[in-house]
């Protein structure tokens, strides 16, 4: 009975490529990975947005309206609804002058209680050290 922690580190801008969306959807799929594992074993993801990746976290994305695809915003909310750990780099938000009010912090309208964490790069680096494997997107 053991747990492996995987760090999904998102550094890419949204929409031009599918990197950031795949990162979040792969992280979410940890919830059903148990069907392939021994009883009691599990995979725990942590999702971190750094660099250009923080642009994935802006509220109000209208990709469904214009392109008919689920927004990355919705995927991040789904992750929060499943109580996944989501970290967003505070220095990078500041660098790009993205206000904290503009950032997706919760999935409260869907009944979620877990909040995204705005964290320093140092804290994110600590997570990168702590996880078993790193996946950069």
């Amino acid at each position, binding site marked *: 009975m053991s747990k492996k922690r995987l760090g999904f580190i998102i550094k890419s801008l949204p929409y031009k490529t599918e990197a950031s969306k795949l990162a979040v959807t792969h992280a979410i799929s940890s*919830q059903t990975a148990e069907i392939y594992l021994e009883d009691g074993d599990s995979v725990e993801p942590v999702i971190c947005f750094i660099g250009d990746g923080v642009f994935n976290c802006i509220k109000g994305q209208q990709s469904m309206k214009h392109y008919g695809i689920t927004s990355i915003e919705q995927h991040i909310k789904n992750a929060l609804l499943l109580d996944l750990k989501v970290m967003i780099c505070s220095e990078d938000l500041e660098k790009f002058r993205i206000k904290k009010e503009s950032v997706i912090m919760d999935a409260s309208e869907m009944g979620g209680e877990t909040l995204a964490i705005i964290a320093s790069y140092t804290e994110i680096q600590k997570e990168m050290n702590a996880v078993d494997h790193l996946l950069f997107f």
Partner: protein
Amino acid sequence: MGRLTIGSFSSPAGTMSLDFAIKLAEAAINKGHAVDLWLSGNATVLGNKDQKHYKDYSHLQKTVKLMFNSGRFRMAICEACAETRGCHKDITMDECIRASMDWHLASCFSADRVIMIGDN
């Protein structure tokens, strides 16, 4: 020996990222390691049967078949990624697993090393 899980969503033809994945997998298998390859996005077309070989494009299917013969290689494609491209089960190679992303996560669980090639 160890177990390596490689993930990729790069196209099999035209970019060299999936070539890297396949060459790395091959080298690992030749050294006695076991390799799981997870393909999503454009990379899923590598699971198609009967990819025609032109000299202008990488022909990775040949190496994939050799790796299957080793008994230490598994390859799975993201079923949704394939179906959204109109590539259904009838044209998927028999040895190739069609699965959801959780297959990849479970493979990472058992891996000694994980590499995700996060290129388009």
